[in-house]
């Protein structure tokens, strides 16, 4: 029973221990100030993401229509690279939108956290998730760049 109790999340402590970190008025005001910029940035990021996704879809449509495949053989020509490129593109945008949405929700919650402790907690949790998704997005973005470089080398 003791072990189980240790694993359960602990209630925020209400002691006056000097060694703990505090939610000072200055810190909370700073968070709320940042949330205005963060919220705007996430909204702009979402709009830019939609715009870039539509442009990428159009590019993909053009490339598949201008260089159509008579028969689909994955390991012939650059079919493998084209397929992987399309798949990584979808994955990349999914992760980007996931990150931006988490960020949008996080900053929105932190913006209204003055009177709501749950919003403050959830907003802080989502902030970590935003960075988490954006790191994976950056990884896929890097993989996609490598894929393009590899395909160029392969075709030359």
């Amino acid at each position: 029973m003791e072990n189980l109790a240790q694993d359960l999340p602990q209630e925020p402590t209400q002691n006056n221990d000097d060694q703990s970190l505090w939610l000072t008025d200055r810190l909370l005001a700073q968070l709320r100030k940042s949330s205005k910029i963060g919220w705007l940035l996430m909204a702009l990021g979402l709009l830019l993401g939609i715009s870039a996704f539509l442009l990428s879809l159009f590019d993909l449509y053009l490339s598949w229509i201008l260089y159509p495949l008579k028969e689909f053989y994955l390991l012939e020509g650059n079919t493998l690279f084209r397929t992987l490129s399309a798949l990584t593109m979808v994955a990349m945008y999914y992760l980007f939108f996931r990150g931006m949405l988490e960020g949008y929700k996080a900053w929105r919650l932190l913006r209204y956290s003055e009177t709501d402790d749950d919003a403050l907690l959830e907003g802080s949790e989502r902030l970590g998730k935003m960075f988490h998704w954006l790191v994976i997005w950056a990884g896929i973005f890097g993989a996609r760049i490598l894929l393009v470089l590899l395909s160029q080398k392969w075709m030359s």
Partner: protein
Amino acid sequence: MTNTPLDFQPEFTPTEEERPAGTWMESYWAETARWAKYFSFAILGYFVWVTYTDMSLTFPNSNSFSKTGIYLVAALMIPLANIPVGFLSFFCFRFSQDLEQALAGSNQLLLEKAFRQLQRSLISGLVIATLWALSAVAQWQTTIQFMNQHVPPDHLDFGPTIIETLDTLN
């Protein structure tokens, strides 16, 4: 006037209304600091790559660099244009570093400093997003121009073009 050491930190005394952050909040901050650090490294990688690509496009061979002064201007302008990306990476790293140290040493002042760094990184992000928005407008303009002018070759059976389809729908 007395001499004070450079690493002197004034003591923090919370007011009556202020309360401890608690273990939940601290664990969320620890998680945020960890991923923010990885993110700053990823952005740094992007900064290096984008600067290298721009440079290699501007200077396809090293001889052209010494020939004209215009390349020197370009050599200065390219890193400058990418500077917001560098700032984003730097402030994000400082945020994660300060937050980690604040959590490790229960340093309230460092915690507040960390969130100031986060705000700076958000401002850098906003500058980048604005530049990207301008670039997106230019890209859409080129795409719409291309769609209007595009006449498909006969040997490729495209069906109606996008503009024709839109006209039919209207």
